[in-house]
């Protein structure tokens, strides 16, 4: 299996995990359509007027499954309508956003936009940073996307013992400047093999050897500016995502694996 195939497998496996979301409110609105996830059955349930603010109950395994959590719909709406980046220029996320990330793991969203992925990536980068060690794999798609995050990754790798591996694909049709790759201590950049991982925006963290801090965010570019994607904390799915990514000590030599580094270490 190639690295791209194992990333795809994470999405396929997550999609098999059915969830249900029951949306309680006194009047229906567009939220049911807005919540566009492939493995979640969303239903509206009318509640009497003068009741609670609209809320949602999320269960595993369909209607009879265990309750995962209950949240105000406003919390979920802030995510599905597109979260706002903090005005103060910090990387701080709102508690609401964190709650969504806790509650909606293994949920396969049909169309995540770049802003949603950027904020979600921030949260996961922070988690890896807080652990402070372990291996973090990050798929940037293009050199330009990596350059835009260079200062973040300088802090991430410089301020921790994290072993960061970055994957990207140079564009043959543009000039050298567009393909320039920043050199950051503690970050190993992989540019081979190229085209098969081009569609994937991903962050996979091995948890520094413990399973409770592991995560994988995998999103597939749909060529229309949106991504089909999910995040997971499930050790077996994280293991699948890690499957074809180099582990510390690998010589990255086999034809199926990612190729050599650019020698930044």
């Amino acid at each position, binding site marked *: 299996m190639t690295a791209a195939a194992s990333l795809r497998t994470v999405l396929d496996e997550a999609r098999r995990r059915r969830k249900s979301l029951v949306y309680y409110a006194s009047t229906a609105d567009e939220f049911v359509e807005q919540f566009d996830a492939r493995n979640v059955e969303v239903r509206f349930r009318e509640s009497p007027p003068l009741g609670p603010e609209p809320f949602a109950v999320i269960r595993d395994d369909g209607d009879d499954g265990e309750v995962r959590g209950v949240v105000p719909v406003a919390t979920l709406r802030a995510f599905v309508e597109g979260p706002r980046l903090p005005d103060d220029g910090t990387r701080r996320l709102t508690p609401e956003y*964190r709650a969504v990330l806790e509650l909606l793991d293994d949920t396969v969203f049909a169309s995540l936009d770049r802003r949603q992925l950027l904020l979600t990536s921030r949260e996961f980068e922070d988690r890896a940073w807080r652990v402070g060690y372990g291996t973090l794999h990050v798929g940037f798609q293009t050199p330009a996307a990596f350059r835009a995050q260079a200062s973040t990754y300088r802090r991430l790798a410089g301020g921790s013992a994290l072993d960061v591996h970055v994957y990207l694909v140079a564009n043959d049709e543009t000039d050298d400047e567009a393909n320039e790759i920043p050199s950051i201590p503690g970050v190993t950049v992989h540019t081979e093999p190229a085209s098969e991982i081009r569609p994937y925006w991903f962050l996979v963290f091995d948890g520094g050897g413990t399973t409770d801090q592991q995560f994988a965010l995998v999103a597939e570019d749909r060529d229309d500016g949106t991504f089909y994607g999910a995040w997971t904390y499930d050790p077996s799915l994280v293991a699948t995502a890690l499957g074809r990514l180099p582990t510390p000590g690998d010589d990255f030599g086999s034809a199926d694996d990612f190729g050599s580094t650019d020698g930044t270490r």
Partner: protein
Amino acid sequence: MVDDGDPPKQLTALDTEVWNDVDDAPSTDALFRALANRHRRRVLWYLVDDSETTIAELADALVGWEASDNVIVGPEARRRVYVSLHHHHLPMLSQADLLTYDADSGAVRLTTSSKPVEDVIRFSHRYEHALARRDER
């Protein structure tokens, strides 16, 4: 103003026809004991609008209320609400002849159809809502 369906107008009006409608009503003490708890008031108010439901849905609704003030309510908190409904509130309301609760199927059904009882349930809910709004001001 949100439409409350059928708001009580004059609870104490000397309308003999309405006040005869107490055949299946609980005793005065049982009714007001039932209404002396926030969870039970909410359960009764929910049932007045939708007389047949399940304990699972009532637990969802009660937790949904709490969720309004929180970012997220987890499975443990919901479990506690479910258990308190099952062991305490629903048996008590059933004893008061206000509803039936089938512990096997989870079905909950409002049994009283007394207009004065319905009015006092709506009244107590509306009163609580008004006080909550006052406290927000």
